[in-house]
């Protein structure tokens, strides 16, 4: 198996799958190369992420990253959630294979997008973020 047990656990029993009907922040991102898509739904109350759900079309690593990322931001403040990096997601999963690091980037980006969607809805100014190259570590082949 190329994946850690943690990854397999989050992949086979993903947490927070689904949609939030009355979400007040939604972010969808796609990886243009592999074609995978991730969608995050946030329910923010009093600047706290009260609920979060995801839908992902993608590989095992993408699904596990969605599951872990949603777990990591649930109950956190919006500022804390904003700070979540793909590296932190990968670490919490006990690591991802180098070719699969970019899948965790999807999670980071989807959360950023969802938070800004929430901020937009609230009339707040959008936060800046650098688009990470989701393909930094793409090739195992040399």
């Amino acid at each position, binding site marked *: 198996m*190329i*994946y850690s047990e943690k990854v*397999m656990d989050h*992949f*086979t029993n*993903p947490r927070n*799958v689904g949609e939030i009907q009355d979400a007040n922040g939604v972010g*969808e991102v796609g*990886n243009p*190369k*592999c*074609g*995978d*898509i*991730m*969608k995050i739904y946030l329910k923010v109350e009093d600047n706290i992420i009260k609920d979060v759900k995801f*839908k*992902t*079309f*993608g*590989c*095992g690593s*993408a*699904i596990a990253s969605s599951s872990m990322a949603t777990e990591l931001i649930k109950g956190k403040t919006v500022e804390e959630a904003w700070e979540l990096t793909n590296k932190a997601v990968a670490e919490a999963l006990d690591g991802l294979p180098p*070719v699969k690091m970019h899948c965790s980037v999807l999670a980071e980006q989807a959360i950023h997008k969802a938070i800004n969607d929430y901020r937009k809805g609230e009339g707040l100014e959008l936060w800046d973020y650098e688009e990470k190259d989701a*393909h930094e570590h*793409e*090739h*195992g*082949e040399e």
Partner: protein
Amino acid sequence: MENNKRIYMDYAATTYTKPEVLEEMIPYFTQEFGNPSSIYSLSRGTKKAIDLARERVAKVINCEPAEVFFTGGGSEADNWALKGIAFANKHRGNHIITTKIEHHAILHACEFLERNGFEVTYLPVDEEGKISIEDLKNAITDKTILVSIMYANNEIGTIQPIKEIGEICREKRIFFHTDAVQAVGHEKIDVKDMKIDLLSMAAHKFYGPKGVGVLYIRKGIRIDNLVHGGGQERGRRAGTENIAGIVGLGKAIELANENLEKEHERLSKLRDKLINGLLQVPYTRLNGPTGKDRLAGNVNVCFRFIEGESILLLLDAKGICASSGSACTSGSLNPSHVLLAIGLPHEIAHGSLRLTLGDRTTEEDVDYVLEVVPSVVQRLREMSPLWDD
């Protein structure tokens, strides 16, 4: 692992080595190990063993034993055919014709040749994966020295009109190579009748060991070595012979051939049952042709809205070993070049599942797979943002 079942449905990736094959190999590791190039009597046995293997191969594909050359596998045979013909015949021309759905051993060898002065035409295929004979004829120029078209595709099982291709090439005096790695041991092949000049095979696709293959080279064909050196294989493929491997290949091809027709029929039935069952899942399509134009053990379908790797992982948890057209898992994110070539859009090509059957596959296995797959697909679709039922 949720239970202890293990159903191997990835025979096209590799097969186990049959116990009878292994048994015949064993003495050549520890006892009959003499270098066949040596003069002493210890090497008499190894020389004979290699001759026998060569005869067995020759018999199955209907060539002369002297036209059989052992290699280190299917990829080496493919690389040898392409580069060997190209370099040895560049005075005659620098044009090669192949297809868009070849194995990477062919495609990447072609790219290497393109970087080194050759021109390559990649023929398109129709939605079942077949080339058009007209396209082939039109692609031939007076610089064409080689046509390389695979016998049967490893992903979607399409069998090409080999004999027709062979006749055209022979008539135009162009060498014809076919990558028959997926066909040998499974389809009846007659290189004389089909006018094949070069043919690649790999033992581990027909219950022989890994790391050994064959390039058949018709007598009189001008070809450079890929591996230069000692005089082994009549000076054409250097390197101390992998005797045990060669013995294993010989035994395996003989066994496969003995049982070919019966097994072909048995597998075709299981295949069709599996295909029909899988097509019951909504938004599912079959990739590749049906009937005799398809490898008897090959099933390849696309489930819309979901992705290949995650299907494989969930199937693995249920004890089912399968593979996907998506090469995601092997380090590249691009969807299968074969599925794109038959016209699938990226996101559909992405949700492919290949199940390949072999000699231990039973009807119960097929039933079990048909029980598991729909629920796995359903589960992933429920997670998918593209799915909306």
